[in-house]
Every structure is written in structure tokens, then in C-alpha cells.
């Protein structure tokens, strides 16, 4: 436990110390590489606006994730009910996944984002988050224990009982694992949307980073990046903990 916490912190302190020293000694201009202390000061000075912007991005991310969960789970269910349906539509889901979200983003912005960047951000984040949920949930529904299936058949379980008492609990750990991946992807999607929309219309943390860059406030860019990565880490560990709580008995 001490190793897991102490070692990374020691490494971080060492890197930050080296960084601070290097900037001080070599007099590196702050518009090229600001020192950690300058970044910290920028963060403290702009914390309210940075956190407010991060909250906006978080809102897009969570909204997109919620839609992705609903759509992914439902579509996986339809796939498990009908192999014809799966054969017909799975390739489209794959196309959606393998096409880089950044290349679709401008189109989405043109279609729905000119007046409403929020909606575009949610759609783009959804595009990024959807597939892992669909793929994992499908795999989960397929991995039902054959003997338990026989048992449900033997005792005359109806379709709903089979889903609710057997398939859903079997697939749940798969779904939880996918949320750790998809939450990060949804965040990337939201950031991409803000970048593509450009400054002026978006209000999230990615836009704040972009804006600080245009103004050559590199320390604010770093502070924004720090907030963004903390957001990603927070999301990951939230779903990691949720997974452990929900699945603790079955592993």
C-alpha cells in the first residue's frame, strides 16, 4: 500500500523539482515552458473559472455516457435476441467505432452544432463512448453459463426471468468494465467537440485550454490540462470503485 502511494508521489515530486530547477536555471521563457510554481499560481488564480468550465465538460461527458449506456445495453439485448438483427447491424457499429471521432466531429458541428454546441458535444462524446459498451455487453450476454441456462429451462423460467435473474447479472461485470473505458472515451469526445467548435461558442475546459493558447497564457493551458486529466482520473476511479462494489461478490 505504501509502495503504491509513496512511489508515484516521490517520482512526481522529483520530476516537478527537476522541471522547476531547469526553468529557473536556464531562464526558459514562460510562454515556452512555464515552471510548476507558475502553473500552480495560474491554477489558484483561475480555479473558479477553470472548475466551472470543467463542470460543463463533465456534464457533456456524463450525458453522453448515459445515452451510450442506454443505447449500448438495449442494442446488445436486441443482438442477443436476434442473430439476424446482430448480423445486419453489427458492421455499422464497427464502422462507427473505427472511424476516428475527430474526423466526424466537423460534420456533427455543421449539422447540429452551429447554434447548439452542447448538443454536438454530447453526440460526439456519445459516438466515442458507445461501441465499447455495446461490444462488452454483447460479450457478457453471450457468456451465460450453459448449465445455468439448462437449469432455468428445466424450472420453466420465462423470458423476463431469464434476462433479469441470469443474463443481466452475468453481463453486469462486462458492462462495468466497459464503463471504465467508455467514460474516458466520452471525455475525449467532449474535448474533441469543443476543439472542433473553436473558441467563442463552447464553454468547457477544452475551450478554456484552446483560448489560453491563443492568448499565449501557457501556464493557464497547463492548469487547464491539469484539471482535464484530474477529471479523467476521477471518472476512471469512480467507475472502478463502482465496479468493485457491484461485482465484489462474484469475483
Amino acid at each position, binding site marked *: 500500500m505504501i509502495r503504491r502511494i509513496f512511489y508515484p508521489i516521490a517520482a512526481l515530486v522529483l520530476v516537478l523539482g527537476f522541471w522547476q530547477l531547469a526553468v529557473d536555471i536556464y531562464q526558459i521563457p514562460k510562454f515556452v515552458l512555464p515552471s510548476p510554481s507558475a502553473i500552480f499560481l495560474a491554477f489558484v488564480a483561475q480555479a473558479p473559472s477553470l472548475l466551472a468550465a470543467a463542470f460543463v465538460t463533465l456534464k457533456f461527458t456524463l450525458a453522453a455516457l448515459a445515452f451510450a449506456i442506454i443505447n449500448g445495453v438495449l442494442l446488445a439485448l436486441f443482438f442477443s435476441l436476434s442473430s439476424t438483427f446482430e448480423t445486419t447491424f453489427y458492421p455499422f457499429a464497427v464502422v462507427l467505432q473505427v472511424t476516428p471521432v475527430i474526423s466526424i466531429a466537423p460534420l456533427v458541428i455543421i449539422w447540429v452544432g452551429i447554434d447548439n454546441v452542447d448538443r454536438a458535444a454530447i453526440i460526439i462524446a456519445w459516438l466515442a463512448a458507445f461501441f465499447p459498451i455495446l461490444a462488452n455487453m454483447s460479450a457478457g450476454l453471450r457468456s451465460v453459463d450453459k448449465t445455468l441456462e439448462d437449469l432455468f429451462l*428445466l424450472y420453466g423460467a420465462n423470458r423476463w426471468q431469464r434476462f433479469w435473474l441470469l443474463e443481466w447479472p452475468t453481463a453486469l461485470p462486462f458492462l462495468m468494465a466497459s464503463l471504465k473505458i467508455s467514460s474516458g472515451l466520452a471525455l475525449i469526445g467532449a474535448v474533441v467537440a469543443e476543439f472542433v467548435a473553436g473558441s467563442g461558442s463552447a464553454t468547457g475546459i477544452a475551450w478554456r485550454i484552446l483560448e489560453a493558447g491563443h492568448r499565449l497564457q501557457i501556464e493557464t493551458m497547463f492548469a487547464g490540462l491539469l484539471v482535464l486529466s484530474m477529471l479523467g482520473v476521477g471518472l476512471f476511479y469512480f467507475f472502478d470503485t463502482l465496479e468493485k462494489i457491484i461485482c465484489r*461478490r462474484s469475483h
Partner: protein
Amino acid sequence: MMMSLKDAGFSYPGSATVFESLSLELKRREIVCLLGPSGCGKSTVLRVIAGLERLQQGRLQFEATEPAIGFAFQHAALMPWADVQTNIALPLRLKGPSDASVIEKSMAAVGLAGLGTRYPAQLSGGQQMRVSIARALVSNPEILLMDEPFAALDEILRFQMNELILELVADMGCGVLFVTHSLYEAAYIADRVLVMGEGQIIGEVAPGLDRSQAVSVQRASQGFADAVFAISELLAVRQTP
């Protein structure tokens, strides 16, 4: 006769016949062992009787119109996300509301009293198998089908489980069709041992042990030795070209 299978035939689609012209009967309070080499169709016989596979030839008849059937599989097949009592209650829950006292009784019958809130991962292999048996018994079945339920257990545990099955059958009065690979297990627990060759019953042995005697005496008795010998003979005959 609680259950009878007459001139039964079955084959999986696109593969060779699993069994044909197979007949067997099961009475109340009777333990019938199906014994034979791997792939001879023992498990499929149980699946057909349970209604998990459709019989293609012959007749399957039950004394009751809709007999309650319990099934214990080769591995415990427990739901890892559910505790012991929820696992045991499954057959009742699928049919309607379940009665806690019935579940308590089943747990006590297999020696699991007090473990109701444990999860499968917290149990030993033997305890997991007890849960599986309790689940098979909870709906008070007239016919209990067991497909090599103790194959994965060690010899000592297997002996204990054999005693458990004998006690349960004496108490509950169900008929048991028990598939096993072990001729010692078959010779000990069965009233009748049906030896199966490829898709057919090639002989029957009735060990006739005196259950009033101590376990050790029964296992060392002449009747037990004779039964093992007779089963071995049948299996050896089958192997002779």
C-alpha cells in the same frame, strides 16, 4: 412405476446416434445408477428425461402428470452473484414466491445451516456441491437426476456425499437416477446399476447392500465386492473385441 423410458432413441442433429432402443424404469425411493464409459450417452438420457432434449423415438412416461424434477449437474453451476439461500431458492422463485422455511429446511438437510448468506466464492468445492443438491431438492422433486455430481470431489468427500444422498432419499422418498463413472460409487449407493455400452444398456446389477449395517461393514461386505465384480465383468465384456 414413477418413470419409464421405453425403446428410446436419440441423436444430435448431424451426428451419430447417441442411444437407441433404450429402456429403463425408476421406482419411488429407488436409486438407479447409470454407469459407462465417457460418451456412451448417459448424460443425454438424463437430459431427455428432464425435457432438456426432445426424445426422437420411443416413449417417456411419468406416473404423475407433471412430475417435479430436480437436477444436479456435474459442476455446481451456482450463480456467483447470489448468496447460498438465493441460489437454493431459484427453482421456487421461478415458479412463484418462495417460502423461507422451505429453504432453511433444504439447507439443514444438506448440512449447510447457517451458511445462507455466504457467496459461492466463499465456499469449498464440497459445500458448493451441497448447495447444488439443496437447490435440486428444494422443490421437493419426485425424480432427482444427478449427472456425475461428485466427479470433481476427492474420495473422502465423495464418501460423505454418498451417505448424504442415501439419507435424503430415505427421508424424501424420491427416485434418483444417478450417472457416474465410478463403479465403486455405483456399487455402493445404487439399488440397481445399469451398465451402459455405446447407446445401450448391456447389463444390470443389483448390489442389495444391507443399509442397517455400518457404512464400513457395507463397503467391506461380500455383496459390495460381488457387485463391483459383476460390473467389472460387464465392462470387460464390452471391451472385448
